[in-house]
């Protein structure tokens, strides 16, 4: 099925088309949910994401890539879930963590699952900003709007997240 026809049929509440869309995007969205909320609640958030996708699919105006739109809905659902669970707390403490020198080759040699495990160990506030900025590629202005924080806070959270990751990586290399 062509993407436009698939969307058309999903809007007409065609269950087969909805299943096709689910099969196409579920593995990708599962990975996103896993990155943002962790493995325990990833399935619940994925369910919410798909319900929201099918509900608000009528609002999609064929502007930009459909995959981008789906990702955005999923990320927003993850953020909403974190806010509801009060897990999304910005750390306003002073940045007194020292920088650790790490070899970039270490990260290159790591697999995706290992990187996921590394990100999982970050606090939720750091993790969200890191995911949004480094992996999704959102600018700080947009991240600040999405999370309802200051742009400077977004930047500081990202810096702290990097230092946190450097520390974890150095510990891993030492061990």
């Amino acid at each position, binding site marked *: 099925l062509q993407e436009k026809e698939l969307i058309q049929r999903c809007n007409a509440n065609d269950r087969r088309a909805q299943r096709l869309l689910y099969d196409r995007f579920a593995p990708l969205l599962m990975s996103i949910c896993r990155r943002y909320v962790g493995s325990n609640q990833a399935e619940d958030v994925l369910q919410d994401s798909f319900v929201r996708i099918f509900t608000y699919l009528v609002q999609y105006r064929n502007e930009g890539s459909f995959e981008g739109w789906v990702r955005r809905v999923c990320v927003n659902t993850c953020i909403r879930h974190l806010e509801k669970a009060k897990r999304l707390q910005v750390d306003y403490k002073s940045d007194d963590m020292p920088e650790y020198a790490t070899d970039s080759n270490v990260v290159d040699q790591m697999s*995706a699952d290992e990187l996921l495990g590394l990100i999982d160990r970050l606090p939720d506030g750091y993790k969200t900003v890191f995911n949004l900025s480094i992996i999704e590629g959102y600018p700080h202005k947009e991240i600040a709007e999405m999370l309802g924080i200051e742009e400077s806070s977004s930047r500081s959270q990202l810096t702290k997240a990097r230092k946190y990751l450097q520390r974890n990586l150095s510990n891993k290399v030492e061990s």
Partner: protein
Amino acid sequence: MIDENPFNSKLYNHTLPVRNELWESIEKRLPPETEQKRFPFFWFLLFASTIISGALMFGILHKKTTPAINSKQIPSYTSPDLSNNTENTNQTELIANSTTEEASNKDLQNSSTHQQDLNASTLNEESASSSNALNPSSNTKSTRSNTSSAGRNSSSSTKSNLSNNSTSSSSSSSSFHFLPLLLPCYFFSFFYYFKTEKNNFYSSAALSKSVASPQKVKFQMRQWFLIPMQLLQIIQLIYCRQLT
């Protein structure tokens, strides 16, 4: 410093396996699928209304061309006052018989006069043809006499037609009583279609822009084919009403 690229390149399009049971739980939370119920109901409504209106129209046209013999079959008439009275049933029967006899006598008289007219016209025609053969200059007179006889015949025939119509309408009036019921039926089916398929209908322009698939073409054809069908049915109904 950690390089940003490895995270992006390895995790942006990263996928994870999903359990099959997850779809079932998502499906439960979605609104129920009603698409399959809509069209059979609509098609049934369309089919039924077409059949009924077609049958009615056929009935009207068929009854209008029935021969004049039916006009002689005058229905028995009993006054409501007399029919209500149980004691005077014999009297009413007698009265009814007498009225039917009178009516049949009148009809016989009419038919006899009609027959006389017919005979006269045939005689005129015969005489005209003979005179035409003998004298071509008398064509104008014969045509005049023909037209006058034809005029009389036509007037008598129109009377008989009127009596035909009155009897046929009285006999078929019961079948026309539910004609007004069809009108809301048509409009209901028409608006039901637009209401249920509004999104698909108005986005047909977007559909036509995208690459066409067989299913889509079928759907579009079905869409555009239904509208003239519905309009045709409404016109048919108006025509039926005008005939009645």
